């Protein structure tokens, strides 16, 4: 099975609120002291792919569209035992819209070659648009399934090749799907990304990693560099939220919890 996993490198979403700054002119976050990490849902997608390969065999190519620093995300994926890595270097707008990203990824995927499965995170921890998977499926002209957390190869069926488990608002669904297919992946207790071995991390820096420019993909590179024509961010601000927390009072723990219970019941009775 040929699997392509798309990875996005983002500003560490776990930085504390007090360290988070934005550049209102650029309408983007300022990196400051924050590190760059692979978007967690992309890592969930890679982990799901690695588990699928363990059972079904095949090859995993990791693909990123981003700044040169996104090579770090790809190296980490190689250390987690992805087979091949491709970076499409973004030398334009730092925040291209999701359609521009989907067009770049689609063009890169066509250049990589035939695939059975393209996997992406359900959304990113920075802009969280949640659209790249769906738009990419349309660009590639294949079906897609969202919020997947596990994939099995179905046996004994000719045209329905995969059984996917995916999360819904109230539980889960099992989906039978033919390939080629695009899936977006969400988190689950079974796809927590593995930690690569130190030795594999060192080895990953010796592995080949293809770097492509926008100009060699046969797309309108100028439009992508401009950020795309799908949507634009016209304002970015940090909301001011002032809530004063009253800590419960009392001399003993019993008194404090008594006060806590009273406050809780005051709220629920007023509903």
């Amino acid at each position, binding site marked *: 099975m040929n699997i392509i996993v798309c990875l996005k490198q983002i*500003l560490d*979403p*776990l930085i*504390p*609120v007090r360290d*988070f700054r934005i550049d209102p002119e650029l309408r983007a976050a300022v990196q400051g002291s924050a590190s760059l990490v692979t978007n967690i*849902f992309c890592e969930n997608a890679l982990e799901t792919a690695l588990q699928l390969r363990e059972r079904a065999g095949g090859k995993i190519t990791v693909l990123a569209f981003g700044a040169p620093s996104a090579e770090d995300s790809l190296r980490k994926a190689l250390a987690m035992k992805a087979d091949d890595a491709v970076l499409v270097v973004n030398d334009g707008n730092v925040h291209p819209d999701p359609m521009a990203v989907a067009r770049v990824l689609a063009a890169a995927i066509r250049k990589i070659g035939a695939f059975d499965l393209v996997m992406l995170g359900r959304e990113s*921890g920075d*802009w*969280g648009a*949640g*659209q790249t998977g*769906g*738009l990419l499926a*349309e660009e590639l002209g294949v*079906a897609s399934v969202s*919020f997947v957390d596990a994939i099995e190869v179905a046996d004994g069926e000719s045209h*329905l090749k995969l059984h996917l488990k995916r*999360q*819904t*608002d*109230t*539980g*889960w*669904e*099992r*989906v*039978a*799907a033919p390939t080629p*297919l695009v899936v977006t992946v*969400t*988190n*689950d*207790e079974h796809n*927590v990304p593995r930690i690569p071995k130190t030795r594999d991390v060192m080895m990953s820096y010796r592995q080949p990693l293809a770097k492509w420019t926008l100009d060699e993909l046969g797309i309108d590179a100028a439009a992508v560099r401009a950020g795309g*024509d*799908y*949507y634009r961010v*016209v*304002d*970015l601000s*940090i909301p001011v939220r002032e*809530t004063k*927390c*009253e*800590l*419960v009072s009392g001399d003993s*723990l019993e008194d*404090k*919890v*008594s006060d*806590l*219970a*009273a*406050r*809780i*019941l005051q709220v*629920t009775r*007023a*509903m």
Partner: protein
Amino acid sequence: MSDVVVFLFSSSGPDRATEGALGAARNLADSLGGRVHAVLVGASNEALMRASAAVADAVLIADDPALAEYQPEACLAALVQISRMISPRAILLGNDAYSQELAPRLAHRLGGSATGDAVELAVDDGRIRARRPVYGGKAVAVIELLQSPAVVWLRARAFAPAEARDPSGATVTRLAVDVASAGGPRIIERAVEDAGESRLEDARVIVSGGRGLGGPEPFRDLGEVASLIGGQLAASRAACDAGWAPPSWQVGQTGKKVAPGLYLAVAIHGASQHLAGISDAKVIAAINIDPDAPIFKHCSFGIVEDYRKVIPLLRTQLAAQKK
């Protein structure tokens, strides 16, 4: 070309989310000077039909048997056909999993632009703009959609319901769609996890546990507290990832966006991603051992103490004080 379509899945509602979606559609259509078309997708739902007719100018019922149970490709094909019949300026959906799955693909097929998780809509010089939380709730962006139609999935509970009008003013039409040829993935099994009495999104009281619980067992104790105050259980992403709680309990940026009257956060640190899921809660209360936990910057009241000591006493106190 100034009309607004709102797609409602008949399996849900009418509830606060459908009211919010209808309210958002009414406001947007009034700003654009267009009509509201409420499209009910799936098996017929009389209550939802009445609620829609009280707000929309036209109610369209797409109850083709092929749409009775959600199948992604068939539903997408139907939404594309219906959208092309109406040629709206904007298309609104909820932020349920199905709507999120369909919206970007719908926008692509219609040559439009999509954005999601919107908490506010505006029209600026004919352009549709959506306000939405970004960076895990640390910032708020305004997105201007450059192509038409604008396809927006909404954090529907953030929108005010519209004033109900005389439902007899709305036209009600059944729509025929042709989705027979839609192949592709098929949902072959559906499972509903125990979610308590109602959906988490509609819960009035929520008791939620986080990483600090240290294991799955404490959720049983939290369940007893919840039942004393008519609440439902929820969890942070950390607790769900650890397998202590099912994924359908997850609250946060990528879990459920809840809007209860009371949200009791137990051993939840309060990362912005979690707070993004509870920004519509009326009252937030916290039990946490760490006085510097960010949750204390967002709650109305709380206690700095080990939950292991608090919960048994709280159970006793709630039971006693309720009398």
